[in-house]
């Protein structure tokens, strides 16, 4: 009972406290006697991990895929989102006969450490004070997020994941998993990501954080105690970040210089342009589902990520002798995690003669392309997973005639096989 009340700082758009206990999915509370050590030197005890699963774990426990969500994602990969009511971020890719075939694989996704959708984060109650952690929450890293996921995988009795897949920050987690726990990962697909947050990435993250930190409603992170929320700062952070997820071409195609519900300029600072109105909407809806402190902590975790630095400056050292099969995917118009970053990962993997595929997908949709309908991306991911699953000895699903089930280029079942 106390668990969901401890998330008192998270409220929905109408100011109602979110009741995580009523949300779909599962929760694991880690043994308080075995605290989770963190890279910063501190540790967290009694961590809660909110997670969702799809499909069934096979008897050999060899068919588990860990899906890692991005900065503002959560574990509702294919569920209707309990706050926004929108479909999950990869809903189209999950299901029987789809890329993440729930008849073949057991899918796991957990809300990251520091998150705000049920896993322990800065909005939770600090047991030492009885108040929400706020900025007293220890600074976490991508490595810490993965360490929490390892506890979850242990709890589920899975010795070795079949695959770890993630885009953007989720891709960082996939790289971290493959680097730190190579014996526990058969395959990894880091998508639209990098082995480090670049100076430009850190710069954009800093703009977002400053918008939050300087919001008068922020109250040094203790906004819950003051009965306020730094919604303006968080909305600006989201607006700035959202621009980095798109491309000039995508923005132009979507909005151009079109005016919003008016014939001519108002010669003021209102939302004359459609693109303004769009961004404002993105900002204002985001604050209903995301906690400002979580945003600070998670962007910081991304800033600190630098796999090469953890290995004496040699990225290849992060993968020395790796048995993991990799598929690295980037998108041509992604300027937040450009192809050059993926190529650096591929070069490092080549240097250790790792088994790696690398594809740059042509898309003008920017960084967000990994969440959108990109048939070539989906065909690539499907081919990689199918090939890896064959090597892992996971049986292919067959249709009612005993033939391999046919899927279309999106990985969706062809009509004749549809139930």
């Amino acid at each position, binding site marked *: 009972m106390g668990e969901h009340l401890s998330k008192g700082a998270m409220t929905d758009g109408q100011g109602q406290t979110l009741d995580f206990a009523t949300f779909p999915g599962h929760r694991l509370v880690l043994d308080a006697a075995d605290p989770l050590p963190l890279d910063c030197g501190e540790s967290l005890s009694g961590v809660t991990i909110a997670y969702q699963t799809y499909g069934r774990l096979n008897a050999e426990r060899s068919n588990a895929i860990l899906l890692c969500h991005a900065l503002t994602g959560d574990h509702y990969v294919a569920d209707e989102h309990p706050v926004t009511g929108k479909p999950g971020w990869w809903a189209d890719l999950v299901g029987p006969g789809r890329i993440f075939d729930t008849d073949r694989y057991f899918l796991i996704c957990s809300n990251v450490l520091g998150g705000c959708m049920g896993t322990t984060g800065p909005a939770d109650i600090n047991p030492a004070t009885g108040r929400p952690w706020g900025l007293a929450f220890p600074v976490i890293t991508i490595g810490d997020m993965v360490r929490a996921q390892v506890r979850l995988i242990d709890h589920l009795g899975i010795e070795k994941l079949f695959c770890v897949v993630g885009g953007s920050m989720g891709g960082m987690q996939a790289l971290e998993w493959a680097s730190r726990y190579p014996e526990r990962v058969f395959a990894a697909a880091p998508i639209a990501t990098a082995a480090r947050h670049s100076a430009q990435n850190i710069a954009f993250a800093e703009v977002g954080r400053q918008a939050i930190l300087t919001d008068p409603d922020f109250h040094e992170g203790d906004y819950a105690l003051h009965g306020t929320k730094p919604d303006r700062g968080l909305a600006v952070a989201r607006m700035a970040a959202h621009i980095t997820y798109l491309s000039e071409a995508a923005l132009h195609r979507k909005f151009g210089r079109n005016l919003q519900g008016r014939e001519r300029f108002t010669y003021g600072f209102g939302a004359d342009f459609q693109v303004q109105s769009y961004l404002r909407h993105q900002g204002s809806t985001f604050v209903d589902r995301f906690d400002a402190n979580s945003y600070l902590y998670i962007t910081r975790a991304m800033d600190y990520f630098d796999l090469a630095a953890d290995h004496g400056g040699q990225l290849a050292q992060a993968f020395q002798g790796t048995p993991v*099969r990799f*598929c*690295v995917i980037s998108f041509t118009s992604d300027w937040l995690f450009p192809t050059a970053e993926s190529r650096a990962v*591929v*070069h490092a993997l*080549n*240097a*250790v*003669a790792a*088994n*790696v*595929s*690398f*594809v*740059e*997908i*042509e898309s003008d949709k920017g960084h967000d392309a990994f969440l959108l309908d990109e048939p*070539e991306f989906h*065909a*690539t991911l*499907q*081919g*990689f997973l*199918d*090939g*890896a699953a*064959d090597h892992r000895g996971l049986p292919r699903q067959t249709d009612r005639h005993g033939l391999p089930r046919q899927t279309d280029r999106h990985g969706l079942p062809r009509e004749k096989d549809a139930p």
Partner: protein
Amino acid sequence: MTPADLRRDAIRVDLQLIADMIDPGARVLDVGCGQGILLDHLNHFKQVDGRGIELSMAGVRAAVAQGLSVIQGDADTDLKDYPDGAFDYVVLSQTLQATRNPRLVLRELLRIGRRAIVSFPNFGYWRVRSHLLLRGRMPVTKTLTYQWYDTPNIHFCTIADFTDLCREEGVRVERSMSLTADGRVSHGASGLLANWLSEQAVFLLRRD
């Protein structure tokens, strides 16, 4: 055989010659692998640990979508990333003539592979010679389909030229095969006659 097996079995003769040179279970890197036809064949019939590099993204996407381990990369610039002796065989099929620095590429092949298999169109083939001799124009044949101004093939050589390069580089020719236009295969591609009659050649090389 299933239809997929038949498709896999029916590869080009020059690719079949290469496949025949590779031991089962070997570690193979196919440089310039295209859509991965040879890799797919080798995976299926020789159970190799196969990887590919391909310059064209369309080729890479097609290969990876079939479950092959292929990266986008360039033979001239990206071989240097691989460690010494990482593969049992490094294959360069019909790609040597399109590299900027064939000598360096050959060295790299034999650095990262215990053996290299190189196939190339023979510019000493009599039809090619006669095309230039009689018509006075750059040869365009069944295997050399490009016009001079749009060809990716920038470093043609004859079988004799290639044999010379191997000698200069201290590379031992373990086996060589030559292939005529009608698909006839002869063992040994070293003689004068082979240089006249062969449209293509396949060399199995190792460092002395």
